[in-house]
């Protein structure tokens, strides 16, 4: 989500890194560029203004001037201020209360409340092992209740049926009763989308809030929101005692300014981000990592977590043993590696979290193509077990058959085999030199590893 902002800021900061001395002029110029980068990323203007003035105040102080590497020091200030805005660490949902713990979701129309309710239900059920009930208080949008019902069935949580003929407050109270009777740990209350300037509807949600006194009140906001994020966030924050924010549709190419705006204006932490169409696409939000990502320092922590979550350890160990023994790396192994890569969200999602990726030119980034991975897996699937174990036997007529079977061209097969043999060579070295040798090789490939902050 933050790539573009990241790219802009990295470029700006790059100019500063090597500089031995900073003049007031060069600081002003840098801040002007930072201002434009933030505005282009849809950060709300009031937030940009306060951000810039904070940074300026610190930048002109002793901290930078007296520092040995003033450029580096300024980068650090921008980073600190970003972290400051985003909140420092991930805040999870607070479920420490008498069950059923009520969670209320509110937001504008089309921000993604109902989908998020289902995702959150699944998350709480699977990660926190809670017994979850959901209810919809949306009596205005046609089929909104049906939508939540279907989703509740999909993620297999309790659903409290409601009717469009009832008052939202009545529905919520009945649901709370039902949740008590059925010993649910958590009750998620989905509400109708509403405009923050619609006085009657804002009144209604206040009444809903009073009726069920939720332990968590979450503001659901579209990550593609522009300048208006400032107005809506403020209005919802004033109307309701919000406890957190959920940012949706972050899998698009929005530049994520809304995240900064909403966080700064409400002062409430962003707790989750929605990252895709499927019900499991909801992730806890880690502000400090995102700040690093914005400045192009990569998000290695998330990368490590992804790897831990998705890589099949036993498979990996098996492969490691095999290679240590000096036995060959074959197409079966290659396929299982490709598949694991897919499980982690594909190459582009990995590349996203690598340090320094923002500095790569656009055409290099475009070559990181997940579609190729899919077609490579298809090609290997169209081979016989013998071909997978001994790729050398793959010649003309076999290639033709494989191409027909996988819906690809002969050239694709050749390309795949070439990549495989490169990988095989790398694996051989890996077997000899171990991880260290591998890392050194990668570092020399990239030309530079980004320095962290000292």
């Amino acid at each position: 989500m933050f790539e573009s902002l990241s790219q802009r800021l990295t470029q700006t900061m790059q100019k500063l890194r090597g500089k031995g001395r900073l003049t007031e002029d060069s600081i002003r110029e840098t801040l002007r560029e930072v201002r434009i980068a933030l505005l282009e990323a849809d950060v709300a203007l009031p937030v940009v203004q306060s951000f810039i003035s904070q940074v300026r105040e610190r930048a002109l102080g002793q901290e930078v001037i007296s520092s040995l590497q003033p450029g580096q020091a300024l980068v650090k200030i921008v980073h600190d201020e970003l972290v400051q805005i985003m909140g420092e660490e991930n805040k999870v949902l607070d479920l420490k209360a008498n069950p059923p713990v009520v969670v209320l979701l509110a937001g504008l129309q089309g921000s993604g409340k109902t989908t998020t309710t289902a995702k959150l239900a699944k998350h709480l059920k699977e990660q926190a092992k809670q017994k979850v009930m959901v209810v919809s208080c949306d009596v205005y949008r046609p089929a909104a209740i049906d939508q939540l019902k279907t989703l509740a069935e999909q993620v297999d949580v309790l659903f409290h049926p409601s009717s469009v003929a009832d008052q939202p407050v009545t529905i919520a109270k009945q649901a709370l009763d039902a949740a008590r009777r059925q010993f649910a740990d958590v009750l998620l209350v989905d509400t109708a989308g509403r405009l923050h300037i619609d006085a009657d509807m804002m009144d209604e949600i206040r009444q809903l809030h009073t009726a069920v006194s939720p332990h968590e009140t979450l503001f659901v906001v579209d990550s593609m929101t522009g300048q208006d994020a400032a107005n809506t966030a403020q209005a919802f924050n004033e109307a309701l005692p919000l406890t957190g924010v959920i940012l949706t549709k972050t899998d698009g190419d929005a530049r994520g300014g809304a995240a900064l705006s909403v966080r700064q204006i409400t002062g409430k932490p962003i707790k989750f981000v929605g990252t895709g169409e499927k019900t499991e696409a909801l992730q806890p939000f880690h502000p400090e990592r995102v700040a690093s990502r914005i400045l192009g320092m990569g998000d290695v922590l998330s990368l490590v977590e992804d790897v831990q979550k998705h890589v099949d350890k036993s498979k990996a160990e098996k492969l490691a043993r095999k290679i240590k023994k000096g036995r060959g790396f074959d197409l079966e192994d290659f396929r299982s590696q490709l598949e694991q890569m897919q499980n982690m969200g594909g190459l582009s999602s990995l590349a996203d979290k690598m340090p320094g990726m923002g500095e790569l030119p656009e055409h290099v980034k475009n070559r990181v193509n997940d579609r190729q991975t899919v077609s490579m897996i298809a090609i290997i699937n169209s081979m016989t077990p013998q071909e997978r174990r001994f790729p050398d036997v793959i010649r003309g007529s076999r290639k033709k058959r494989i191409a027909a079977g996988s819906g690809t061209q002969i050239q694709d097969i050749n390309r795949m085999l070439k990549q495989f043999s490169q990988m095989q060579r790398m694996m051989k070295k890996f077997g000899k030199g171990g991880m260290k040798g591998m890392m050194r090789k990668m570092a020399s490939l990239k030309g530079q590893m980004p320095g962290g902050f000292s």
Partner: protein
Amino acid sequence: MFRIFRKKDKSSGELQDVQLRPVEQSGVDPLEKRLEDSRNTIGKRLKTLVGGHSDINEDLLDELETTLLTADVGVKASLAIMDNLRTAIDNGVIRDPQALLPAVQAELYELIEPCEQFLAVEPGHKPYVILMVGINGAGKTTTIGKLAQRFREEGLSVMLAAGDTFRAAAVEQLKSWGARNDVPVIAQGTGADSAAVIFDAIESAKARGTDVLIADTAGRLHTQSNLMDELKKIHRVMGRVDESAPHEVMLVVDAGTGTNALNQARHFNEAVNITGITITKLDGTARGGMLFAIASELGIPIRFIGVGEAAKDLRPFDAGTFINAILPLD
């Protein structure tokens, strides 16, 4: 307080009609209210600034720039407009602060006026096929409901195709709109092939001699290439029943969207050649300035603005009114 119309059986599976929001019952014109609000806030602030000075100063220019930026006009367009303004001031074309606001309005008008092209249903096509596309939550299905009612009131026969087979209960939502406007809805279950549903619908509309067919599609983020491919397929398949279909491909954009709206328009346009834009949810405080960026880069006609919940609140796009809501003159 709540008027409930056509209340049906509560048992599931039955279509239920929904309650009216309080604002729909108030009888206030949302667009008028919207214009009133911008006059009161932005208009007043700018006027005091203009009135308070006899010459043009930086404060005033800054305030103008801020107004443009906070309306989502975007950095590029805003800076370009301000540059033009400064040149005009330097050349002595603009001397009086009173002339500043009209000058900016004129710039904005020039950008967007070519896109003021109303959607005309050509009677030569039966059915006249409209394909609705957009990202999740932009308001496609709601807009379809309002469009259907509008066409019905014009005396045209309408049919809807429930092409959103992905989102839970999207089909029911469209059916409910159909029932309310007495319009047939062609649908299969959730998970069906969207292209097939729409194909069937066009054939059926042809057979019945329906005037307008509006096809819904699932919301999709423009960055997801597989979903965009699906959309291309839908577009292709539609052409198989009727070579000229779809006659209108309408992109629905949420007014709250920031700079990302341009990306959306670019990607959808690449995939299925957008021929019209509808901007929804303009009744909030979002001012929809990103339309200027879309207009200047892609020049796609802007068809409607959505300013409220009721069907009559889908209004034909009018450049003058739209600009007045961003930068009020009077």
